[in-house]
């Protein structure tokens, strides 16, 4: 039997895969961050589906927390991009390896 939450979980898996591919194969930090947003959205979808699956509100509440975290991530991440672009005039991820071991 095909149910909505289960399908939703599968879609969230696929979205996550695509998002992860985006983060891995794009060189531009901006695109990487956009892909991270896809990842977070996939996670949100999974949470909402889990909420529906178990009949509780936990998933939806956690989804709001994820949303808040995503907002903070976007705020700080984009601030960093702006700062980086100012100093390095580049937002290529490969140019940023000062933390190389």
């Amino acid at each position, binding site marked *: *039997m*095909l*149910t*909505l*939450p*289960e*399908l*939703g979980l*599968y*879609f969230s*898996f*696929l*979205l996550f*895969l*695509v998002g992860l*591919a*985006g983060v*891995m*194969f*794009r*060189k*531009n930090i*901006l*695109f990487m*961050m*956009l*892909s991270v*947003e*896809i990842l977070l*959205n996939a996670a*949100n*979808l999974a949470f*909402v589906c889990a909420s*529906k*699956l*178990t*009949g*509780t*509100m*936990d998933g*939806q*509440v956690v*989804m*709001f*927390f994820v*949303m*808040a975290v*995503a*907002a*903070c991530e*976007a*705020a*700080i991440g*984009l*601030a960093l*991009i*702006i*700062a980086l*672009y100012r100093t390095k005039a580049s*937002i290529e991820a490969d140019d940023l390896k000062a933390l190389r071991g």
Partner: protein
Amino acid sequence: MNLSLLSFIVMGITAVLLSGVMITRRWPVSAAMVLIAIMTLLAGMFGLLEAHFAAAAQIIVYAGAIMVVFVFVIMLLNLPPEELRYGGVTVGEMILIAVSVFVAVGLGTKVGQGFLTTGLESMGVAQGESVAGGHHMYFPASENVKNVAASMFVDYLWAFELISFLIMAAVIGAVVIAKKRSAEHADAA
């Protein structure tokens, strides 16, 4: 197959396809716009899953706020379109992709059989059992917003308060990072 299931599947497939489109865009603005479309589709899916408040918040916060920041940054920096480099896929990455496609297909067939729903039942996960425990829903299922609120403000009280600290830290951090050298760049406007 009823209407909501059909639209759910159509929306889901569209979202996945669009995400594929998104990660291959050259222009950041195009990518951001496609992402907004994906988020709107997801909001619709939330609605079909009867998470009404989540659907509204998805649009208000994600599509209407977070993406605005992305669009602003893209427009502020006015980045040129990026040259895509497809040649960079190594053998290891090829294997990864192959494996993930395999797993995706496998999972798809499993989902088609409805293994999760039955699996949860066999694992004895009862419906309506909150992970945080303690709180019992006291509103009818149609009162989605009140149920979410009850769960958040009773079960997840501390997480809720902590979020405020997170947001405060993000506000301060973003201002510190972005405004750091703005004195020298004040003429950039």
